[in-house]
């Protein structure tokens, strides 16, 4: 039997680094200061509270119990990407969670290292000190499929929380085969890489506990210079950082929430709602709308929010929105009118909904046919597609209050 455990690292979305005010924008070449490059005498500033809050919320979403305080420890080792010669890493923020049937041992916070290019011998320290959250699982996965399911579910949770924006997962993969020793492969930076590592390491039991690195270019693992058994990180509490009190934020567990929502609407839509960040809006909507209506509206809302770059987490359906929904339900307005009304709300425009009863369709069609003599002639000569143009003209005049299919029917009656 194969047992696989993961230590997954993700960047929480924060404006600044964990212990200094340098921006986290990773493209920048100049995001560094005396603190994040560990210049002699520099000390850490107060740990980024946004990063701590995000770590707590993630731990809660994974069903962990939240600790009362965290302490930052120094984990010592030499590597060119680690300017201080130690990495600051917190004690667990939360422990004892579960996701996709995999037990979560703990979630904690740490600082990222720089980016080392061994071929050039250069390090970019812009990434040094960027907050990193580590999710440690128990070795509860037994196949590539298990791992794939877990990672995809984890990715859903991170999307649900609006946790990240770089969507980069790095993982240390621990594998033991049958009764063999544990093989640890460090810093695998893609899901494809993780799958390859599992393939490579699950063929036979290892006789000794060993640490390996994954060579992305060669798609091969190789044994690290340092032996696992010789490594002692000499953890000590960082004397420069007093312990930090933390408390739950009230974030619900993702899987429980998913179960709840999936009982109300189809699973796939439930997932879309959670992952896209529309859950707060959904909570409002479900009291006033039928499941079919919600399903219909979700894709419209998501599309239009995305087009306008609005965070779905910030979208709260207002009374005007529900008025539109009600009018559409009672067929007072058309779908077209409802959608453009919704867009007006998003754009902050005055909402105008003309009732379709007030329009004299016959008169409008007569007007249009008189004005569009050329189009009428084209239609008579057999260019039937011109009908769409005429439908459009009628819709413009009626403010979209009439179903376009009905207009087309009426137009055809008059033209033939």
């Amino acid at each position, binding site marked *: 039997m194969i047992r696989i455990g993961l230590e997954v690292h993700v960047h929480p979305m924060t404006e600044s680094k964990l212990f200094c005010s340098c921006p986290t924008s990773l493209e920048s070449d100049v995001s560094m200061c005396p603190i994040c490059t560990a210049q002699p005498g520099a*000390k850490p500033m107060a740990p980024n509270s946004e990063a701590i809050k995000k770590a707590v919320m993630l731990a809660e979403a994974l069903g962990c119990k939240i600790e009362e305080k965290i302490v930052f420890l120094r984990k010592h080792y030499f590597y060119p990407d680690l300017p201080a010669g*130690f990495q600051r890493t917190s004690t667990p923020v939360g422990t004892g969670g579960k996701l996709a049937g995999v037990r979560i041992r703990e979630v904690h916070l740490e600082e990222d290292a720089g980016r080392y290019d061994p071929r050039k011998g250069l390090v970019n320290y812009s990434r040094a000190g960027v907050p990193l959250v580590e999710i440690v699982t128990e070795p509860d996965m037994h196949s590539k499929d298990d791992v794939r399911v877990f990672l995809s579910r984890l990715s859903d949770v991170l999307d649900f929380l609006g946790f990240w924006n770089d969507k980069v997962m790095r993982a240390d993969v621990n594998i033991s085969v049958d009764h063999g020793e544990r093989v640890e492969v460090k810093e695998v930076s893609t899901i494809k890489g993780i799958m390859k590592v599992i393939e490579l390491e699950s063929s036979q039991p290892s006789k000794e506990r060993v640490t390996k690195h994954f060579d992305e270019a060669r798609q091969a693992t190789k044994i690290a210079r340092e032996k696992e058994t010789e490594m002692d990180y000499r953890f*000590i509490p960082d004397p420069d950082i007093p312990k930090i009190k933390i408390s739950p934020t009230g974030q619900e567990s993702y899987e429980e929430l998913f179960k709840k929502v999936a009982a109300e609407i189809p699973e796939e839509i439930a997932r879309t709602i959670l992952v896209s960040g529309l859950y707060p809006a959904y909570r409002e909507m479900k009291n006033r709308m039928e499941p079919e209506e919600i399903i219909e509206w979700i894709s419209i809302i998501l599309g239009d929010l995305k087009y306008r770059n609005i965070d779905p987490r910030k979208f709260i359906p207002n009374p005007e929105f529900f008025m539109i929904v009600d009018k559409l339900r009672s067929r007072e307005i058309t779908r077209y009118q409802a959608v453009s009304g919704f867009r007006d709300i998003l754009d902050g425009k005055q909402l105008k909904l003309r009732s379709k009863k007030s329009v004299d369709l016959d008169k409008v069609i007569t007007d249009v046919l008189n004005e569009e003599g050329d189009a009428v002639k084209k239609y008579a000569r057999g260019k039937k597609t011109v009908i769409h143009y005429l439908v459009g003209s009628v819709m413009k005049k009626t403010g979209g209050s009439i179903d376009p299919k009905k207009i087309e029917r009426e137009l055809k009656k008059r033209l033939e």
Partner: protein
Amino acid sequence: MQDLMIPTKEILEMEKDDLEERIRYQLDLAEKYRDFHSFVYLEEDPAVLGPSLGVKDNISVKGKPLTSCSRILEGYIGTYDATAYSKLKSDTTFLGKTSCDPFGCGSSGATSDFGRTKHPLDPSRVPGGSSGGNGVALSLGIVDLALGTDTFGSARAPASFCGVVGMRPSYGLVSRYGLLDLSMSLDTITPMARDVYGIAWLLERIYGKDEHDLTTVDIKLDFSQFPVDLKYPRIGVLTDCFRSPVDERISRLVEKTIPKLDVDIVEVEISTSLDLLVKAYYTIMPVEFASSMQRYSGFLYGKRGKGTHFQEIAIETRSDLLSPELKRRIILGTAISTRELRDKYYSRALSIFSKVREEVDKIFKDVDFLISPTMPVLPWRFDEIVDPVEIYMMDILTGIPPACGLPAISIPVGSVEGFPVGMQIIGPRFGDVDVLRLARMYEEGIA
């Protein structure tokens, strides 16, 4: 020529012309006393903004050499101003970086990698350390004010040996930002001067909460009432601090000094022996020191050793450029923090510290101050004491304040065999201003 040793108050009130003349003269003095190695870096043509200031070479000043007197940082230039220095730079004249034991590791003040610092009265003796350069430069009149550091006695020892004043503030009162770590939970940046007035002037400016040092405390001290008489302070005298191995002549001098003011004297005891406290320190400090010294690997800054693989570079750099004392502490600290040994030594040492803290807190319910000699011996000759453990034991009288986070000052109270003797006044946490007051009263009472 003006008198070099006038009170600091008068220097601070000098006209600009007089001050410029004074500083030119002090720069000449620095040249004249070059062999005393009080400075590792001297400004050539400093802008005169106030009294002359020496800054210990383990404190960062932007654009100036920062080596901590260790070859591993040779050629390194500070990239930012330490907070304490930044608060002084607009009304002092930065004269240069003063010598010290590398990274503050030493009690003799004489072990800089860049030349031995010598006692101002006898060049064959040590000046006390690790802030030795400050003690010498103040004593010789080269500077009027100085910033030093004190972890377990580093400012008070040279103050005592050189006959000047050095004060370790309460832990958390002065930002450590820019101080090269020795033992982070104990390190302090310290004012040094030739009189208590100079110390108060410095401390008033450099103290305060700093977002760049999370261990600093938001507290307001009132220096405006300084100096004011204290009525019949109760002085605690720790009997252990006056017994062997403390030189009897030093004990007697301090014992005679205490009753020169109207004070109540109370004999007090603690159950932890002073040498056990020193041993606990030499267990905790190396762990913190080894951790902070990890950064000196030759990758990022300072000098770089030969090698192609990063591990080779780190080994070469550290083997070649760290002094034996630094290696001793790093190896010790590395060993003590390993899985096998940490409980046996490190945890025990921490519990010794917390026990002493408890007992001293209790003593301060009955007394206002603790007074003792600062150093157990007179300045020794360079070849007289070479055993590291014997030198470690020179810290027996200066350990209680750092272990308990308390303020402590050393003021000169006389001499034995022609060498100055310092008396240490310890106050309760954040009782820094009262310590200064009492020190000022003794200063006047003795004069």
